[in-house]
Structure formats: C-alpha cells, structure tokens
C-alpha cells in the first residue's frame, strides 16, 4: 500500500535512488548500511553510518532556511510509559522505525506520522536494569527490525508486521544483565554488547547471524576469559582475551571484572574493525584490584569476522571514579602535512578527548574537553596514559576500619562523566567534533555504615555538584587537530541527548528543558529553537523524502540523570515526562 502511493509521487531523487537500488521497499543490505552516511533518502543505522559520525550531506535545511522549519507531524508513544526516550529513529522507504522506553518498537508512516504497528516486549518481574527503562534504537537488516530488550534478549521483528521472526536470550537478566544500546549490523552479523557492570558480571561482545539469530562468536572484554566462535553450530575455543589471566588484575579479581560494553559500538570498513567501549571495572573499590584491569574503561577493536581483539586503548587504568570508557569511538580522516591520517576520536567520561590511529590504536593526541579535571594532571604525550594525582583518588576503605565515614575527595568530572552515553557528531566540512558535555564534580567518600541485602557493607557515598553557577550542560565545538575549543553553548540542565550535524552548517541536539536546538556549526549561534514539551534525550536524524529534507527527534525526559540528582537536582526537578516523536520540515 505504501508502495502504491509512493510510486505516484516519485521525485527525481527517488528515481535516482530507485535506479541504484533496483526497487522501492527493498530489503536493507550490507551495502545500504555501509553507505548509509551518503545515502540521504534513508537512515538505516545507528549513528547515520557505522562510523557513527552523525553527519548528513543534506543542506536544504541550512543556516538560512532553518528558522522556517515547522513540525510536519508529532507521534505519541502513548500509554502510561511516559519516560526515558533515548532512541534514534531509523527511516527506510517512507517508514520510520523507533524504539521506545520499556522495550517497545514502533513503525510509523514517515509522511503522515500514522502508526503502522507496535511491538511491546513482555518484561518479566524483577528485572533490575541499572539506569532507567531506556532503549537507544533499532537496527535494520533484510526485512527485519532488530533490537535489544531490558531483559537482555535480541528480538527481530518483521518490518511490515512487527511480528517476531526470531528471539535470542543474550544473557540472564537475573544475573543483572540488560541491553539498552542499539545493535549494529556488520557483514550480515548483528553485533551487541550487554549492560550490567555494577553486579560483578563479565562484559562480552557477541555476533549473531542477522537472518536467524544463530550465535557466531562471543568475545569477553575482561582479560583472562576465553572467547568462543561457533563453527557449523559447534562452540569452539577462540583464544583467551588478553592471552592469559592475572596480568593486570590481582588474585582472581578478573573473574568478576565488569567492563560491560553497554553503549554499543561503531565500525570502520577501511580497517575492517569494530570499536566497542567498555565500562568501569568491578568492584568499585579500586584498591582491591591494583593493576590496570584490562580491558575495563577501554576502547577495544575487534575483528568482525573472527571476534578477536586487534588492539585496545585504555582511557582510565585502575578506575576508581566510575569513569566507564563507553563513549563511542568515531572514525574520521584528516590531512596533516599533505598526508591523510586514518584517525578515530572519542570524548571520555574521564574528561579527556582522545585522537587515536584507528588501524592500531596508537595514541596521536589527547586534551581535556571539560573545564575541570582533578584526578589527572594530563596525559602522557607518547602513550596517552593519564598522569594521576594520587591524593585525589578516592580513599582506601581499609583506612576507615573504625566504622567512621572516610575523608571526602573532590573529583571532577563526576561519575556521570564529562560526557556520558550521548553520542557526539563530526562534521567533515567544519572539521569539528560537537561534544555534548557536562561540567559536574562530586565529593566521594567511604561509607562503612551501609548495608547490602541485610549485610553490613562498605559503600561509596557521593554528592554531585555543578562546577559553574549558571549551567551544567555544555555543547562544545572541538578541533581534533589542535584540541582548541572553537565555541560553546551553555545549558542549565545536564545534556543527555545525541548530536547531529549537517552540510547545511547546522548542529542539532536536544535539552532536558525540552528544546530541539539548531546551532550554526561554525559559530555556535542559535538558529532554531523548538520546545517539544518534555526533555529531549534522544538523538536527532535527518533524511530526504519526496524532495524535502526532514528532521526528527524523540522527546521524553528520563534516563540516568533524574535517578541521581543531588544539588544538580534543582536544575531538573521541574521537568515533565513525555514520549513523542517530533518531525520537522520546511514549508513548501
């Protein structure tokens, strides 16, 4: 039916795309996914391309025209589940696919906003996902819409009906696992990590056959654990991560090392590697696991065919601050002395921005992207390792055995990170990264008088505090070649949504106050502002349909920030929950 109406209104660009793809309503192929960034009529991957640059070559909406941008339609996710919409929409053949909070998926007519189907995962009682009920998006492959659930399953739905085609248990939710990140499809494989780093689990990246959900390989992200590959359905040993146990972990602490790759990954075809970020090591007390604790708080490059680790880069060795290394690693090329450098960049929770050689993980340069860093005085120029300030590491609970509260240490950034899960964007025209950052610090101390499951427990107590009086969130335009901040946009509440940038010299992102903002990519000036009525923590996308450029974003306050609060709580207490997709275009 959709096909029928569309053939009547074929535009020139549609004709061209038809000629290329052969037919409308085609299934999503590996090639479609690889070329996603340059094919403007669809968005078939998280990150608008597997590199995750979140850049679109579209420019009908630009700094001159964006002020006229109007809502084309609004879609409500409905029900009582009005919170935590962190998803990025995908668009294919005039249909938008989104995931909603509480493990829901919707297919929407991208022209009218009409719902085509909805899928609600039945969540079991007693699931304990760490940080709200969110989901960050779906993957498309063939005629399937694939996503991960809060009870740690992968579900593949038929794109036309929303009916389950296959479903696989990735991990046991009872052990504390969940999936919140968007899966990705590389070479016909669905690749996913898991969340649950706080429960002493072991992080793993897994690849499944996208067609039927059969497992292909499994790679633990903690040193010492065996990886596996399935050959003709047979589980075969595939090498221990890091070679052997006990090199960077004392005793048997590697057995429950954390390092969960909970924020998904990126991929670059030039070097044919997957890049996954890993969470902080477990348990929280760093004095119990002296050593670097591989591969926690790291970026790990994995071969998509074999599931073997090609290289790793650790941002926070022996982490003691909850600085997960889960920020996405974005591949990009730049010219220096006439040579093209195949680089990749990431803005870590720990406050430093890293530029790496994406072929081998070598450190090229690094610099702070937040105003205040207390835990390290800088990075080693050769290796990129942090130069620790020892007295600013949270204290050893062994020193407070008298049962008294330990001495508080001030640490910046806070455990919510200089940047958290929310993806930044890279614009190849301005050659700048647009980083959604938060300027917060925390007091952190040992709290012996606490309890866990009725047993005395040594917890860490902490207070979140804003660093500046007038704002917490800040979007920064950073030059990856010099480390210079080109401009900043300040926001009262913490930023918690992804960024999009376009050839129209624009940067789009949302705020918890409810605004979708369009900034001038070169100057940071506000060119567009629209209040969606609830906090925006999703990631915007843009695409072209019937010759018109569209911009879409989910609105719906939630996520990890309102679960914490502290003094920062006053900036967000008044924010209302919601659950809607807002879609914009220029008037005809």
């Amino acid at each position, binding site marked *: 039916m959709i096909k029928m109406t569309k053939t009547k209104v074929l535009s020139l660009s549609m004709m061209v795309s038809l000629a290329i793809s052969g037919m409308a309503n085609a299934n999503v192929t590996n090639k479609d996914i690889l070329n996603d960034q340059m094919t403007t009529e669809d968005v078939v991957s998280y990150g608008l391309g597997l590199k995750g640059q979140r850049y679109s070559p579209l420019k009908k909406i630009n700094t001159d025209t964006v002020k006229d941008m109007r809502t084309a339609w609004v879609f409500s996710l409905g029900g009582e589940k009005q919170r935590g919409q962190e998803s990025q929409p995908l668009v294919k053949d005039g249909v938008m696919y989104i995931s909603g909070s509480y493990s829901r998926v919707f297919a929407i007519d991208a022209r009218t906003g009409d719902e085509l189907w909805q899928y609600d995962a039945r969540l079991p009682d007693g699931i304990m996902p760490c940080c709200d009920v969110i989901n960050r998006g779906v993957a498309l492959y063939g005629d399937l819409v694939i996503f991960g659930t809060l009870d740690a399953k992968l579900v593949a739905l038929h794109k036309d009906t929303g009916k389950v085609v296959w479903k696989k248990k990735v991990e046991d939710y009872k052990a504390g696992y969940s999936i919140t990140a968007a899966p990705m499809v590389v070479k016909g494989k669905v690749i996913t990590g898991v969340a649950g780093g706080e429960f002493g689990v072991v992080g793993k990246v897994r690849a499944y056959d996208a067609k039927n959900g059969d497992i292909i390989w499994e790679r633990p992200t903690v040193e010492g654990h065996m990886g596996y590959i399935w050959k003709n359905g047979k589980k075969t040993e595939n090498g221990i991560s890091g070679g052997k146990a006990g090199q960077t972990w004392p*005793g048997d602490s590697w057995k429950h090392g954390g390092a969960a790759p909970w924020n998904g990954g990126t991929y670059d075809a030039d070097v044919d590697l997957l890049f996954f970020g890993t969470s902080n090591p477990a*348990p929280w007390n760093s004095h119990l696991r002296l050593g670097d604790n591989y591969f926690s708080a790291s970026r790990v490059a994995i071969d998509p065919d074999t599931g073997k680790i090609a290289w790793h880069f650790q941002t926070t060795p022996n982490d003691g601050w909850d600085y997960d290394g889960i920020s996405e690693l974005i591949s990009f090329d730049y010219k220096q002395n006439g040579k093209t450098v195949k680089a990749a960049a990431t803005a870590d929770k720990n406050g430093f921005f890293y530029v790496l050689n994406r072929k081998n993980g070598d450190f090229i340069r690094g610099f702070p992207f937040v105003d205040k860093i207390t835990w390290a005085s800088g990075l080693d120029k050769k290796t990129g390792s942090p130069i620790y300030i020892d007295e600013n590491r949270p204290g050893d609970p062994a020193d407070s055995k008298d049962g008294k509260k330990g001495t508080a240490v001030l640490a910046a950034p806070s455990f919510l990170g200089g940047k958290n899960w929310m993806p930044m964007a890279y614009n190849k025209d301005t050659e700048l990264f647009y980083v959604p950052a938060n300027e917060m610090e925390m007091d952190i101390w040992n709290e012996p008088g606490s309890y866990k499951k009725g047993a005395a427990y040594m917890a860490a107590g902490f207070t979140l505090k804003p660093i500046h009086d007038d704002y917490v969130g800040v979007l920064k335009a950073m030059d990856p070649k010099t480390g210079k901040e080109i401009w900043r946009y300040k926001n009262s509440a913490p930023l918690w949504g992804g960024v999009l940038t376009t050839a129209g010299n624009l940067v789009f992102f949302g705020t918890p106050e409810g605004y979708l903002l369009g900034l001038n990519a070169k100057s940071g000036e506000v060119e567009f502002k629209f209040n969606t009525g609830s906090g925006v923590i999703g990631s915007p996308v843009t695409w072209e349909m019937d010759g018109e450029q569209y911009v879409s974003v989910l609105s719906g306050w939630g996520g990890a920030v309102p679960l914490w609060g502290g003094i920062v709580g006053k900036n967000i207490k008044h924010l209302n929950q919601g659950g809607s997709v807002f879609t914009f275009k220029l008037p005809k």
Partner: protein
Amino acid sequence: MKKINIPLFSILIGCCLIFSATAFSRSYDDIIESNEIIVAVYNDFQPFSYKESDKAKGIDIELAKAIAKQLGVKLRLRWVTADENVEDDLRNNLWKGHYIKRTVADLMLRVPYNREYSLSRDDIGELVHQHVHMFSPYHTESWKIIYNNKKIESVETIAVFQYYDIGVEVDSIPQFYLSSAFRGRMSKHTKQFMSISKAIEAMTVSKVDAVMGLSSQVSYFQSTIPTNNYILAENAFPMMGQQQWDIGMAIKADYRQLGYVIADIVEAMVVQGDMERIFAKYHVLYKKPDFYQEI
C-alpha cells in the same frame, strides 16, 4: 450494548482494586479488610528466603507466615531482587516502587535495625529514610568463618589465611576485609564467588579451604554438608569496623499502627523462644538482639 457494558465495567473495577492493592503500601485497617498482607523478601537467599521445588522456604518465610497468621490474614510474598544497597531496596519495594512497575509491599523483612542508619541524612541534609519506619529487630547478625579441618588444623586467628585459600562473596565486607586488611597479606588467598553458596560448593570440592560470610548463612550451609570435617571458627576479626548488627523490618512511614501490631507479634516470638526455634529448624546460630535484654 448496555448488556455488554455492565460486565465490562465490573471487570474494570476489579482491575483497579487489584491495582490499588499493590501500587501503594496500605494501612493496618486496609490490610485487615483485604484479608491479605504483602511481605517483601529477598530472592534466592538461603537460609532466609528461597524456593525449593517452587515452595517458599526459609527463616524469613516462616516469620512472614507467623505474622500473617497472628494478623489473621493471608500471606502474599513479594520476591525481591536486591539492588545495590538496602536504601534502594526500600525505595523499590516499600515506598515508591521500582520504575519498571511501581508496585510495593506492606512490609519488608531483613532490614537493618540501627538508629544511626535509620536517621542518616543525604547530601542535601534530608533524612534518607524519611519514607520508611524501621522496627522490630529479630536477630543479630555477624561474620563467621567455616573451614575444612582436613586442610587447616585450626583457625586461631585470621593470619592462617596468608597460607590457605578462603572464599568470599564478591563485593562484600569479607572481600574488602580479607583483600585489604593487614596491608593485603591475605589478598592472594582470597577467592571471589558470586554467592556464599557457590563458595561453600567450592570448599566441598577442595577448591578453597575455608569460607567467610554471614554467620547465619555459614552455619546453615554447614548443616547441608554431609561430612563433619567443616568447622565453624571462633576467631576474631581485628581492625574490622562493624562486627555485628541487628536485623529487623520496615514499613512505610505513614502506617505506624501496622508497625505497633507487628512489633508486638515479633516481641512475643522472640521472648517466648519461637524465633530461636525457627532459626534452629534451619540449623542457624541464633543471637537475640540486645533490644530484648531484660534489665
């Protein structure tokens, strides 16, 4: 049309009643009227609350049954997956509900009874536990080591664990203590397990020589091992902060009347020895809280 509407309407009312019974903690009067009390207990936590071929068993289950019986109402159990700390568990299960479902229980067991803890304040000066009332300590918990006497002659002091492997639960005080006390001299021999039952299992197949955990758990598991070469140690834990603490229960702060009624039931059980008999049934060492010491 009208004929269809009437049963539909009554179904709707039915739904709402069930919903209201679980979406909020309830007062004593409401519990009596509904003929049911909802009690929160931890999942899979031997010997306190666990399932054996789908039958609820354990010390806390028996206590919950006794309370329901004395109140003259039916017992409904709410099985709780533990969050990172008790504060989270109280929020998820007693006053606010977890954000997935937002349902709560009327009473939660195995909540620490400690005045300093119940009056603790958060970073902006608010009472952390203002929404709950903690009361009725029913036993005193502590740490205990169990060891294989075919491997270790005796455990006079914890110094022997510079030479012998000891199992602990991951992210627990015994793990903190054995990995860091005395400048980490025992850390090499400290082996982590996801639970105490897993550690005990490892001890019975000689993967570790001893286990340190909650006194109740360790004494219970001792009774489940068929051979008698696993001994409870009497050693001290020097340099350790909190060595013993009382375990009680909690209700939502608004329903003190419920608390008074339950406190009377529990006090009678402690004083008349019923509580100790429940513990003895599970071969668990029982220590009466100081709260009930006769003056």
